[in-house]
C-alpha cells in the first residue's frame, strides 16, 4: 500500500527496467478460459461446468456491485473522505469468481485489494472503508465471515493462511471440524517475497488444504510482472511439489471453475494448488499513484477490450439469460448500495484516542495503563484550561 507523493511534474517517458508485457502477445495456450472476451462460451476438458441462469445472473450482479463499491471508494477518496483507496477496477471477475467458489466454512486471507471477495463473503463494504479512512486498521472479525483482515505487508498473510490450514487439518483429526479449505490471496509482485515462497515450502512439505490465489494484474505499483519473473508465475508451483494453473482472471466463469476445483481438492486432502489469475489493474495502484508515469495507454486499451463485465453481459444477452429489466434492476441496486456506502463512510466513528491503549494486549500492562492514565489527565487539562 503506498502513498505516492502528489506529483505534478510532467516528464518524458523514461526507460523502464524491463519491457512491459506486450499485450499483443498471444496468450499462453494453457490459459484456462470458459468465456472468450467476445462473450463466447468456451470449453475446457479439465473444467467442465454448466451454469444455470440464476448463477450467471448472480455473477453479473456481483460484478456490477463490486465495481460500484470500488468506484465509490475512489470517489470518496477524491472528495477527501478517505485517505487512500486501492482500486480493484479490472479485477472484478477474478474476485467474484473466487468468492463464489468458496464454501461458507472456507477461510480467506486477503491483501488490501480484495474488495470483491469480501463482498461475496458478505463483509459489509462500509467496513472495508474504515482502514482507508484512517479510523481503524481492520474493522471486522475474521471469524465472523471467514474473511481475514486486510494485509499490507506483502506476502505475510500467505504464511498465516498455511498455518490456518494446518489448524484445519488438526481440527479435522481431532473430530471437531469438517474439512474446509483456505484461500491465500496475493499479487504478482508479492511472489518475490521470501514469505510467499516459504509458504509454498510449508504447504508442499506437509500438504495443506490451501489454495494460493495470485492475481497477476501485470503490475506491482510501477514494476511489471516480468521484472519479478521471466517465466509465468503459475510455473512456480511445480518446483514446490504441487500443481499450478493459469486462468483468465477476467473470465468469471473460468475463475470460478478453477478455484472451485482447487478448493475441493484441498478439502479432500489432495494438497495445495497455485492459481494465477491473469488479469489487469485498470486503475492506478492506489489513489496516490499516477500510472501514466510508467505505462502507456495502448496497454490500457487492450485490457479494456477484455473487460470482465462486458463479456459476461454479452454472453448473457446473446443467450437470453436475462432481459433489460434485470440489468436495470442491478444498476438500481448498485445505486442504492453506493448511497449506503457513502452514508456509512461518513458515519464511521472516529477512534477514541484513549481506546487504542486498550487493544494492545488482552491483559493490559501496568506500563500501558500508566501511559493511558497520564494521557487522559493531559487531555483533561486542556478541557479544564482553555
Amino acid at each position, binding site marked *: 500500500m503506498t502513498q505516492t507523493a502528489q506529483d505534478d511534474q510532467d516528464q518524458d517517458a523514461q526507460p523502464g527496467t524491463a519491457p512491459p508485457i506486450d499485450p499483443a502477445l498471444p496468450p499462453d495456450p494453457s490459459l484456462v478460459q470458459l468465456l472468450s472476451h467476445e462473450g463466447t462460451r468456451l470449453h475446457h476438458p479439465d473444467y467442465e461446468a454448466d451454469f444455470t441462469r440464476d448463477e450467471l445472473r448472480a455473477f453479473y450482479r456481483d460484478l456490477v456491485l463490486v465495481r460500484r463499491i470500488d468506484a465509490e471508494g475512489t470517489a470518496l477518496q477524491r472528495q477527501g473522505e478517505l485517505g487512500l483507496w486501492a482500486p480493484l477496477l479490472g479485477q472484478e471477475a477474478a474476485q467474484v469468481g473466487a468468492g463464489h467458489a468458496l464454501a461458507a466454512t472456507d477461510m480467506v486471507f486477503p491483501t488490501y485489494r480484495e474488495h470483491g471477495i469480501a463482498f461475496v463473503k458478505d463483509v459489509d463494504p462500509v467496513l472495508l472503508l474504515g482502514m482507508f479512512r484512517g479510523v481503524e486498521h481492520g474493522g471486522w472479525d475474521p471469524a465472523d465471515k471467514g474473511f481475514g483482515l486486510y494485509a499490507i505487508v506483502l506476502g*505475510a498473510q500467505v504464511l498465516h493462511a498455511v498455518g490456518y490450514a494446518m489448524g484445519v487439518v488438526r481440527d479435522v483429526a481431532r473430530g471437531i471440524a469438517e474439512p474446509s479449505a483456505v484461500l491465500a490471496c496475493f499479487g504478482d509482485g508479492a511472489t518475490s517475497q521470501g*514469505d510467499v515462497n516459504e509458504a509454498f515450502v510449508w504447504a508442499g512439505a506437509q500438504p495443506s488444504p490451501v489454495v494460493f490465489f495470485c492475481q497477476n494484474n501485470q503490475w506491482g505499483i510501477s514494476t511489471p510482472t516480468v521484472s519479478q519473473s521471466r517465466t509465468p508465475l503459475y510455473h512456480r508451483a511445480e518446483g514446490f511439489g504441487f500443481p499450478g494453473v493459469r486462468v483468465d482472471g477476467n473470465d468469471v466463469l473460468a475463475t470460478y471453475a478453477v478455484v472451485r476445483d482447487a478448493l475441493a481438492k484441498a478439502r479432500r486432502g489432495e494438497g495445495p494448488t497455485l492459481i494465477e489469475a491473469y488479469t489487469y489493474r485498470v486503475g492506478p495502484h492506489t489513489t496516490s499513484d499516477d500510472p501514466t508515469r510508467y505505462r502507456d495507454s495502448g496497454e490500457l486499451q487492450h485490457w479494456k477490450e477484455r473487460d470482465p463485465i462486458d463479456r459476461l453481459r454479452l454472453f448473457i444477452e446473446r443467450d437470453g439469460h436475462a432481459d433489460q429489466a434485470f440489468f436495470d434492476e442491478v444498476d438500481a441496486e448498485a445505486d442504492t448500495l453506493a448511497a449506503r456506502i457513502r452514508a456509512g463512510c461518513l458515519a464511521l466513528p472516529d477512534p477514541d484516542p484513549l481506546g487504542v491503549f486498550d487493544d494492545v494486549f488482552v491483559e493490559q500492562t501496568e506500563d500501558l495503563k500508566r501511559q493511558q492514565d497520564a494521557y487522559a489527565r493531559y487531555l483533561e487539562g486542556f478541557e479544564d484550561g482553555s
Partner: protein
Amino acid sequence: MTATLETPTEVRTLPMAKALNEGLRAAMAADDTVLLLGEDIGRLGGVFRVTDGLQAEFGLDRVVDTPLGESGIIGTAIGLAMRGYRPVCEIQFDGFVYPAFDQIVSQLAKLHARSQGRVRMPVVIRIPYGGGIGAVEHHSESPESYFVHTAGLKVVSCASSADAHVMIQQAIASDDPVVFFEPKRRYWDKGPLNLASSEVTETLWQARVVKPGTDLTLLAYGPMVRTCVEAAGASEHSLEVVDLRSLSPLDMTTILASVRKTGRCVVVHEAGANLGMGAELSARLSEELFYEMEAPVLRVTGFDIPYPPARIEEHHLPGLDRVLEAVDRSLAF
C-alpha cells in the same frame, strides 16, 4: 499458579533444560490446543533436548519438525493461533530469530491492535539466548532489546529451574504473545522444583528479590542473575539482587521499592549498553527517583560490538569482577 492448592508435592532437582521440558509437558497435557513448532524439536528433541520425548508422547501433529525457515515457523504459528491453537515456537539459537522479525514485529505484535482486540495471539516464542558456551558466531546473542522495544509483545526470561518450569506454563497460558528467553548457558544448572504444585507465587510479570540487601541494587535477568548473586556473595557490601523476570512489562513496583531503599543501582546484562535494558531502567529510575538516587544508574554490559570469538567471550560477558568494580564506582558517588 500459587502454592495454596492442596496437591501432593513432588520436589525434584532438575537442570533448567529439563525443567522447561517438564513445563512444556504439563502445558501440553493440560490443553490439547498447545502445540510445538521448530527445527529439530521432534525426533531429536531439540539441539538442547528441551523438547525431548514430547513428540513420542504427543504425536506428530503436536510436535512439528518444520522446514528450515524461521519466518515460516512464526508465520504459520500466527495462522494456527487464528484457528484456535496455542503454538509454542522454538528458535534454535538467538542469532536465527531475525529472519522471522517481520512476522514477529509487523504481524504477531500488531494483530490484536489491528483487529481492535478481536484477534488473539497466544503464541510463545522460545529463544535460547546469550553467550558463555564457547560457540561459533550467531549462537551467543542477546537480542531482547529488539522485542522489548516492540509494542504488542511481552518479553520474559527465566533464571532458575523452578521459574523455568512455571514461567513457560504461564507464558503458554497468556493470551498475548510472549517472547520467552532461555539463558542457554544455565540450561545445565540444577535447581529444585515442585512438579505437582508450584511454589512460585509471582505472576509472569513480576520481578523478584532473590537476595535482599541494603547498600545497592543489582538488577539482572536470565544468565546474569547467577552472576549477580555470586557477586553479592563475594562483596563486602550488602547488595540486593533483583531478578527482573519480565523485561516487558517491567515490574516497576518491585524495582522502585528496592532502589528507593538502597539509593544505588547497577544493571547487568550481556546485551550491549547502547539501548540495552539498562538504558530504559536508568531512564525510568531517574524519572521516578530523581531525588532519592545517590549515584547514577551504572551499566555493566556486553560491549557495543558484534559478539566476539569464543576465546575472548569472557572479556565481553559481564563477570563477577566487572560487576564488583561497578558497585565500587557507584558507592564512590
